[in-house]
């Protein structure tokens, strides 16, 4: 047996059936099209979320089809609606239960900034509690805006530095 030459090996045995890519790019591609999301819906923006998720706008087309009702299985937290001070610890617990890597979308004026509820009871934007990747303005936002936000998040996931288990730690 002679020494196996890699190029010849690929050419002869695999017959060109392979692609060459960067693992970072591959992981990003895989992650951005398989976003399991956990809807944390507290208010009227939920209606817009529902229409964006169901047949009319259907964000399953972008790979966000899988709705999980356990944060442990979710990649993306969809915070839709007003978060009151009393609910803030619940949201924080839900966020902390999610496995890495995870992303958060704040949907609607209330989740982004407290909206019209500038008072004693409402958290003035959920970024005061958990880190947020994409903010969706609007009261409520149009479903198209939600789709646009998902595209933005996918773009972010594709180009971010992926965290992977077997990465060589320096």
């Amino acid at each position, binding site marked *: 047996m002679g020494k196996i030459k890699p190029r010849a090996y690929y050419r002869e045995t695999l017959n060109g059936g392979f692609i060459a890519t960067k693992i970072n790019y591959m992981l990003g591609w895989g992650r951005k099209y398989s976003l399991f999301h956990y809807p944390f819906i507290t208010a009227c923006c939920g209606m817009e979320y529902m229409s964006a998720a169901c047949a009319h706008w259907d964000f399953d087309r972008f790979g966000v089809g899988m709705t999980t009702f356990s944060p442990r299985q979710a990649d993306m937290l969809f915070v839709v609606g007003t978060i009151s001070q009393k609910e803030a610890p619940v949201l924080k617990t839900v966020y902390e239960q999610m496995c890495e890597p995870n992303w958060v979308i704040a949907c609607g004026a209330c989740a982004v900034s407290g909206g019209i509820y500038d*008072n*004693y009871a409402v958290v003035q934007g959920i970024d005061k509690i958990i*880190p947020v990747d994409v903010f969706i303005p609007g009261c409520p936002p149009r479903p198209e805006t939600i789709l646009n936000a998902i595209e933005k998040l996918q773009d972010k996931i594709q180009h971010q530095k992926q965290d992977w288990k077997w990465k060589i730690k320096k």
Partner: protein
Amino acid sequence: MENKKVIDALTKAFPGKVTEVPDRLGDTIVRIEKDDLLIIMDFLKNRPCEFTMLLDLTCVDYLSSKGCFEMVYHLFSISSNKRIRIKSEVRKNELDIDSLSDLWKNANWLEREVFDMFGINFKGHPDMRRLFMYEGFEGYPLCKDYPLRKRQPKIPLRKITK
């Protein structure tokens, strides 16, 4: 029973204790002293008036103008399809009034809400705790003297860095 008859029956049963405020927009408003609240409510709930339903119970802050809170009770009679509104003043120096939770079960939570938002104590209430706000919340947020921008977060907030 017509509302006029109700007023007549009330003034007959409690002479001098009931002040009728003229009808406004079809609502009959009766003003009473807070010490007479329980007996008058008991009278209204039973025959012949039969206001068997406590629709709502709330409070208004008139501290700056009149120096008092005003309790407002909305009653509804299912048998005659009539409504009546009872008002009673609660002075600032004695913030308590009798609880109606023995007469109507739903008064329990409504009174807890008023306690939560205005700090009025209900004598004889079985469970006088806050209803909406969390433990550790200081002050009564619907009082006019509660600072508009005062925030009392339940958990520490993040410091947002750019």
